[in-house]
């Protein structure tokens, strides 16, 4: 049986997801399940001209970058028309990154014109109906290489992926980024981090951590197989969310000390009641350094 033909095409993009995927430790054994027709960085047997002239076949289409209806040309050709040509023929379409999925960073340039491939933030674009049956969304800025390899291997093995209403695989986006963070105890007891880079304290109260209302598995499938942003002490910026990029990162918006955004699905009354109770206790262990070294 011939291998599925894989095309990686870009619209308005920074290459971030293409680069991120190169970090996969098993990159070539994953790609070995496919015939790589085109990739923006890796060499293949075909040129961009072959793609533009529509000389190749496509089974799995990976899309990176945000979209405009018209006016974005590469080599003199309207990019979205080339992409739609292959999108019609592909069996699976994967939008990688928040730009291709929801609009992302590039949308900020012209918010009324620029969108994702099938979604404009969370609204369906005119393309949606035509491609919904084969669409998989992988938002992230950039995506984790293992999120993509998971999807590719499921496709290569003919397995069905469960997806949510925005077409994100539930195995990856059913979690919040908050789940699995090593700072969870500090979140429970409302102890905030006194500075960046410290092992102690939670970043939700002062430093703008968006993980409690951001879907993703950054604290389950670790970055570089080693760690995560929040574990090392940098707040989550919510890069997987349709509303990314928000402003005032590194800063938690509060109303008289009450966080303006609640953890996913938690009613404000429930959150505030619990906060009032936990804040009434001072637990010694949480005011101490985690690791004490002898001088």
């Amino acid at each position, binding site marked *: 049986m011939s291998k599925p033909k894989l095309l990686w095409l870009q619209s308005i993009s920074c290459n971030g997801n293409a680069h991120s995927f190169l970090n996969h430790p098993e990159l070539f054994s994953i790609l070995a399940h496919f015939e790589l027709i085109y990739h923006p960085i890796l060499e293949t047997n075909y040129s961009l001209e072959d793609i533009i002239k529509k000389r190749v076949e496509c089974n799995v289409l990976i899309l990176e970058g945000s979209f405009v209806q018209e006016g974005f040309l590469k080599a003199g050709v309207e990019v979205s028309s080339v992409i739609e040509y292959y999108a019609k023929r592909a069996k699976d379409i994967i939008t990688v990154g928040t730009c291709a999925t929801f609009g992302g960073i590039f949308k900020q340039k012209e918010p009324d014109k620029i969108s994702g491939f099938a979604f404009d933030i969370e609204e369906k674009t005119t393309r949606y109906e035509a491609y919904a049956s084969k669409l998989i969304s992988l938002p992230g800025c950039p995506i984790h290489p293992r999120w993509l390899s998971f999807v590719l291997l499921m496709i290569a093995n003919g397995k069905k992926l469960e997806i949510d209403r925005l077409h994100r695989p539930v195995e990856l986006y059913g979690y919040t980024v908050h789940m699995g963070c090593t700072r969870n105890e500090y979140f429970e007891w409302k102890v905030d981090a006194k500075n960046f880079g410290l092992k102690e304290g939670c970043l939700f109260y002062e430093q703008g951590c968006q993980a409690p209302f951001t879907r993703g598995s950054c604290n389950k499938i670790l970055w570089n197989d080693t760690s995560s942003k929040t574990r090392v002490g940098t707040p989550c910026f919510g890069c997987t969310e349709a509303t990314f990029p928000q402003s005032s990162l590194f800063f938690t918006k509060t*109303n*008289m*000390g*009450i966080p303006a955004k609640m953890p996913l699905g938690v009613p404000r009354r429930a959150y*505030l*009641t619990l906060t*009032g109770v936990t804040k*009434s*206790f001072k637990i010694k262990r949480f005011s101490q350094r985690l690791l004490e070294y002898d001088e």
Partner: protein
Amino acid sequence: MSILKIAEKKALKRESIIQTALQLFASQGFHKTTIPDIAKKLKMSVGNLYNYFASKDILAKEIIKYTSESLGTKIREVNDTDASSEEKIHQIVTLYFTMAKEKPEMIEYFLRVYLSNREVFNDGCEGMICVSGFITEIMIFFDDGVSSGELRDQDFFSAFGLFMGYLGGMVFLKGEDVLPQEIEFYIDDISRNIYNALKA
């Protein structure tokens, strides 16, 4: 009698103990009031009263939760309306002063028992635990006011102290019989003062 009826009756009895104890604690002082005093006023045996509350300290803590919940429930009704923060302030001041007039023991208890006998409440009612029913609603009131742009964003306790300290102070003056007028006389002015201090 069905199990449900028994449970209902017990709940009613429990509430009447709380209310009677509340009155006695507020009027005679916490230390001067004994469990036999409360039982006597309720015409029940001391032993039976201990079936409901194992000690005077436990009863004291249940009372503060009870008063905080009942004030919280009333403020929640205000929070759940579409009124402006200015109107809500007026409503909260009104209901607080009405409570001070109709059930003075509730507020007296808070000011004279809860705040003055911290040693009784330190174990089990630390910080905000027993008053969270009330504090949570005040937080929601502030949060709504700031997010709608009507109130100025500031530290929670600066705003809370201004609002509740003011109301508590007035009720305290009333309790000392210092106020020349009935307490509702002050509602409009006080509401305006609070609004002016908190508005954006």
